[in-house]
C-alpha cells in the first residue's frame, strides 16, 4: 500500500501469473509485482524490495537439465542478480514480454516506433539514474548515466551523500578513462584527469582544499612518476613548488624544489619525501652550494661559492652553515685553511691558517675573475646529480606510451614496429575525440582545435634501412612536426622537457654558476630523445656519430656543411643527434639557457659592449682606418656617414634572432659570403682576399652589426656544435668572430 501512487498502474503480479524465486527457502513466500516503473518483491508478509525497472536487465535462461532453472528468467540489477522460474514455457514468455515491455516503457522508449523496427527487447546499453543501497563503498550513492548489463559503463555521474561528485567515464562499474571528481570539507579536493579501476591513474590535476595543487602522474590514487606540487601561497609560512619524481605519493628520485619563502632552490635527489643524496642548491643571495643530504639535512663535504668569488670547500653542518674542516679562498687568492663554524650571515668562527697569495711563491691558482672561472668552477658540474639521472620519469613515461620496457635500452626492430603502432593509436584516439566531442573536457579541449598534420597521420616508410638526402629531409620534417605537436608522444616529451627546464633555471635558478649543469642537461636531453628517434628511424647514425650526405639536391634545409671529399665544391649535410634535434628542442629551452649564458658572460659582454659603443660613434671611414681596413675597400660613392657592407651587417644581425647553433653558424657563413660579394662587386670578380684583407673588414662588419651579447652567442655556439666542424671553413669563420672578444 505504501507503493500506491497516482501514476502507478499494476501490470502483472505473481499471484495470478505464477513465478517463483529460484534457490529460495522452502517456507518463504514470495510475491512479485510489476508496476509502471518498479518491480516489487514482497517476501514474507510485510518485507518488500522495489527495483526500478530502468535498471533491470532481463534475460531468458537457456533450458538446462537443472529442474530449478527450467523456464527461468535471469534478472540483473546494479547490486544483485535474481533468477526466477515459471511453471511453463508459456508463462515464462508472458513474464518476459511483460517485463521487457515494462522496462521499455520505464525507459520511455516509444513502443510504436521501436516495434516497427522489430525490436522488443530493451537495449543493453541504457541511460538511467539509480541510487545504490547495498554495495558498501557505494551506499546511498546516486549514479546517473550510461549502463551496460547492470554495470556503470560509459559516461556518467556519481553523487555521494556527502556531496562528493564524480563526472566522467566508467567501465565495468568503476571509474575508468577521463573524469573529474570533487569532494568537500577539510580534506576535500577536486581532481580532473585520468582514472583506472576506480582510482586516479595516469595524468591528472588534483587540487586540495587548502589550495595545494598537484599536476602530474598518478598510480592507484597517489602521485607517482613525474609531477609538480605547488604548496601554499606567497604569503603563507611554507610555500614551495616541487617538480620531479614521485613514488607512491612521496617525493622520490630527482626533483627540484623552489622554496618561495626562503628563496632557496634545491636540485637534487629525494627519498621518502625528504632531501637525500647528491644535490646542488642556490639561494636568493647568490650562494651556490654543492653537496649531499641525509634525511633532509646537509652533511659531509660541500663546495660553496659566493657571488663575489669567495669559495669554501669543506665540511658543513647544514645549508649555508660551515661546520668542520675546510678551505676558504678569497677572490684575490688568499687562502684560509682550518676549521670553520657558523653561517655567512651571522659570522663564522675560524681557527685556521691564512696564506696570502701575493706573498707566497706559488702562483695564484685562479686567473683574474671575470674572464675565467677559477678552479672551483671547473670542478662544479662534476658534483651534483649527473644530467642523465635527472627527469628519468618523463622518459620512462614516454617509454610506456611507446610500449617499451623502460629498463631495456637495446631496442629491437620489433620494438620499433610496436612503437609506431602505439604512436598511431595515440594519434587516432585524439582524432576520435575530435570527431565526437560531446563531452566537455577542458584540459583536453584545447587539443581539439589542433589538427593532426598530414605527415604524422601515416607511419613513415623512410629512414628504416638506409639514409639518403631525400629520406633525411623527410625525417627532419616529420620530427619537426612531431615535436611541435601536442598529442604526439615525442611532442609531449618535448613539452615536458621544456617545462622542467624552465622550472629549474628560471627565477632563483637563473644563477650563472648553474650554466655547466644547464648545458649538460641539454646534451643529455638531446641524446635521450635521440634514442627514441633512432628507435623510430633506425637508419639514423648512432648518437655521437655523424653521417654525411651530399647536399646537392636540396638547399632548403642547409645544415652544418663542409666540403665533401670527392667533390670539393659540393657541400654535405651533416646528420647527427645535434643537427637533427637541437633546432627543434632548443627553442623550447632557449630563454632560460640564454639567460644563464648572458649572466655567465656578463663581464665579458659588458667590456665588449662598452668598446663597441665607443667605436660605433665613428664614421665609416674613421672606423675603417682605425681597424686597419685597407683603403682599397673604401667605397667613395657611399656618403661619409653612409654604410659600407650593409648586406653583411644586416646578415650578421640575425645571429641573435636565431635559436639553434647550426642556424647561427649559417648566419656567420652567409655574412662572409656577403662580404665576399661586396668586395668582388667593388674590386672585380678576380680579386682574392687573404686574411690580411678580410680580417679588418670583418671586424668592421661585427662592430657595425652591434650584437648585444656576442660573448654569449659565441659560447653558446661553441658548446653545441659537433666537433667535426673543426678544421673546416666554418671553423675559420667562427674563430674570426670569436677573436672579437679578445681585441
Amino acid at each position, binding site marked *: 500500500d505504501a507503493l500506491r501512487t497516482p501514476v502507478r498502474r499494476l501490470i502483472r503480479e505473481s499471484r495470478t501469473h505464477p513465478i517463483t524465486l529460484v534457490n529460495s527457502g522452502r517456507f518463504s513466500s514470495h510475491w512479485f509485482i510489476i508496476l509502471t516503473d518498479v518491480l516489487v518483491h514482497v517476501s514474507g508478509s510485510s518485507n518488500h524490495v522495489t527495483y526500478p525497472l530502468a535498471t533491470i536487465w532481463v534475460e531468458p535462461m537457456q533450458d538446462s537439465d537443472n529442474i530449478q532453472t527450467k523456464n527461468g528468467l535471469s534478472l540483473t540489477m546494479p547490486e544483485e542478480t535474481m533468477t526466477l522460474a515459471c511453471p511453463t514455457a508459456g508463462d515464462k514468455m508472458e513474464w518476459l514480454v511483460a517485463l521487457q515491455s515494462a522496462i521499455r516503457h520505464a525507459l520511455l522508449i516509444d513502443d510504436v516506433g521501436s516495434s516497427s523496427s522489430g525490436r522488443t527487447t530493451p537495449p543493453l546499453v541504457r541511460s538511467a539514474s539509480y541510487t545504490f543501497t547495498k554495495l558498501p563503498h557505494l551506499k546511498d550513492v546516486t549514479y546517473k548515466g550510461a549502463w551496460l548489463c547492470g554495470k556503470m559503463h560509459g559516461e556518467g555521474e556519481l553523487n555521494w551523500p556527502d556531496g562528493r561528485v564524480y563526472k566522467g567515464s566508467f567501465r565495468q562499474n568503476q571509474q575508468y578513462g577521463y573524469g573529474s571528481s570533487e569532494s568537500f570539507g577539510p580534506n576535500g579536493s577536486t581532481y580532473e584527469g585520468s582514472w583506472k579501476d576506480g582510482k586516479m591513474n595516469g595524468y591528472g590535476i588534483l587540487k586540495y582544499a587548502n589550495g595545494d595543487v598537484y599536476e602530474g602522474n598518478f598510480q592507484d590514487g597517489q602521485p607517482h612518476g613525474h609531477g609538480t606540487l605547488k604548496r601554499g601561497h606567497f604569503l603563507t609560512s611554507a610555500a614551495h613548488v616541487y617538480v620531479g619524481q614521485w613514488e607512491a605519493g612521496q617525493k622520490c628520485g630527482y626533483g627540484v624544489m623552489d622554496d618561495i619563502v626562503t628563496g632557496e632552490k634545491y636540485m637534487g635527489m629525494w627519498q621518502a619525501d625528504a632531501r637525500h643524496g647528491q644535490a646542488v642548491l642556490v639561494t636568493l643571495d647568490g650562494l651556490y652550494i654543492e653537496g649531499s643530504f641525509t634525511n633532509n639535512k646537509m652533511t659531509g663535504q660541500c663546495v660553496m661559492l659566493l657571488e663575489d668569488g669567495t669559495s669554501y670547500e669543506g665540511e658543513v653542518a647544514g645549508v649555508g652553515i660551515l661546520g668542520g674542516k675546510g678551505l676558504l679562498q678569497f677572490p684575490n687568492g688568499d687562502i684560509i685553511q682550518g676549521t670553520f663554524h657558523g653561517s655567512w650571515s651571522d659570522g663564522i668562527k675560524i681557527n685556521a691558517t691564512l696564506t696570502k697569495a701575493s706573498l707566497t711563491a706559488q702562483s695564484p691558482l685562479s686567473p683574474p675573475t671575470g674572464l675565467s672561472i677559477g678552479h672551483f668552477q671547473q670542478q662544479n658540474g662534476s658534483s651534483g646529480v649527473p644530467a642523465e639521472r635527472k627527469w628519468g620519469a618523463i622518459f620512462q613515461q614516454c617509454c610506456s606510451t611507446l610500449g617499451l620496457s623502460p629498463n631495456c635500452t637495446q631496442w629491437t626492430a620489433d620494438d620499433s614496429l610496436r612503437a609506431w603502432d602505439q604512436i598511431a593509436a595515440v594519434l587516432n584516439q585524439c582524432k576520435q575525440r575530435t570527431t565526437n566531442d560531446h563531452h566537455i573536457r577542458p584540459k583536453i579541449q584545447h587539443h581539439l582545435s589542433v589538427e593532426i598534420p598530414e605527415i604524422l597521420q601515416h607511419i613513415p616508410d623512410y629512414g628504416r634501412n638506409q639514409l639518403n638526402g631525400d629520406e633525411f629531409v623527410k625525417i627532419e620534417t616529420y620530427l619537426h612536426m612531431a615535436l611541435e605537436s601536442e598529442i604526439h608522444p615525442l611532442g609531449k616529451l618535448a613539452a615536458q622537457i621544456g617545462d622542467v627546464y624552465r622550472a629549474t633555471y628560471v627565477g632563483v635558478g637563473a644563477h650563472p654558476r648553474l650554466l655547466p649543469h644547464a648545458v649538460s642537461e641539454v646534451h643529455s636531453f638531446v641524446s635521450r630523445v635521440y634514442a627514441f628517434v633512432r628507435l623510430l628511424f633506425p637508419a639514423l647514425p648512432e648518437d655521437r656519430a655523424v653521417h654525411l650526405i651530399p647536399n646537392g639536391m636540396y638547399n632548403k634545409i642547409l645544415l652544418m656543411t663542409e666540403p665533401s671529399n670527392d667533390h670539393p665544391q659540393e657541400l654535405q649535410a651533416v646528420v647527427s643527434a645535434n643537427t637533427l634535434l637541437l633546432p627543434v628542442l632548443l627553442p623550447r629551452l632557449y630563454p632560460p639557457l640564454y639567460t644563464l649564458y648572458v649572466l655567465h658572460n656578463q663581464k665579458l659582454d659588458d667590456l665588449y659592449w662598452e*668598446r663597441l659603443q665607443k667605436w660605433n660613434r665613428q664614421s665609416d671611414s674613421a672606423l675603417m682606418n682605425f681597424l686597419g681596413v685597407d683603403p682599397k675597400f673604401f667605397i667613395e660613392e657611399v656618403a661619409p656617414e653612409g654604410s659600407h657592407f650593409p648586406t653583411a651587417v644586416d646578415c650578421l644581425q640575425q645571429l641573435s634572432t636565431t635559436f639553434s647553433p647550426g642556424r647561427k653558424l649559417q648566419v656567420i657563413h652567409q655574412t662572409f659570403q656577403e662580404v665576399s660579394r661586396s668586395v668582388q662587386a667593388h674590386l672585380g670578380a678576380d680579386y682574392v682576399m687573404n686574411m690580411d684583407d678580410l680580417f679588418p673588414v670583418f671586424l668592421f662588419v661585427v662592430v657595425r652589426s652591434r650584437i648585444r651579447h656576442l660573448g654569449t652567442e659565441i659560447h653558446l655556439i661553441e658548446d653545441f656544435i659537433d666537433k667535426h666542424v673543426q678544421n673546416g671553413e666554418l671553423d675559420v669563420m667562427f674563430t674570426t668572430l670569436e677573436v672579437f672578444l679578445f681585441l
Partner: protein
Amino acid sequence: MSRNFGSNLGQLHFKIVLLGEGCVGKTSLVLRYVEDKFHEKHFSTIQASFLTKKINLEGQRVTLAIWDTAGQERFHALGPIYYRDSHAAILVYDITDQDSFVKVQNWVKELRRILGDKVVLAIVGNKIDLDKERNVPAEEALEYSKSVGATHYQTSAKTNRGIEELFLDLTQQLLRMAESQNELNSSINLTSNRNPEVVIVDDSLAPKKSCCG
C-alpha cells in the same frame, strides 16, 4: 675543439696555420700550392683566408686545412686563437727583410711556449728569386731552425720553387707524428669527444687578451 687527427672517413685531417708579416708573400705561397692547373680556381667563401688541399701520400688520404692569419702587427695578440689545435705552423719570412725573420723568431717562441713540442714547425724563407738582395743569411736561418726543432725551407712563390717540396715534407712529418700518436693511444677512440684539456689551453690564453685600440 679537440686536438685529434680526427676523421671518421678513414682519412687524416691536419690543421696548418700560416704565420708571417703582411708582405712576406705567405698568401701567394699557399695559393701557388693549391692552384689547380686543370680546373678553375675554386676558393672557399673566404677565399685565400682558408684553403684546403687533399693529397694521397704513402697510401693515406690526407686533407690539409690551411688557415691564413692577419699579418698586421696590431693583430699579433690574436694569434693564439687561430693557432690553437693546429698540427703544424708555417712561419714565412722574406729573405730580403731581416725584420720579418725576427718576427718569425718571436712566433716560434710563442708557439713553443703555448703549443709545446707537439706542433710541427716549418720556417720558410720566401722570395729566393731575389737572392741578390738577401738580408737573411741562409746558414743563419738553417741553424736557428735546427736549434728550435723546426725544419727550414727556401721557396719562391713567384717562380714556384721549393713549394711542392715544402708541403710534401711537412705532410710526411705530420703523418709520422700522427702514427706515433696513434700508437700512444691506440686504445683511445680517435673520434671520441672533445678533449677536456682544451679548456685549459683556452684559459691560459685568456689573460693574454689585449686591446688593440
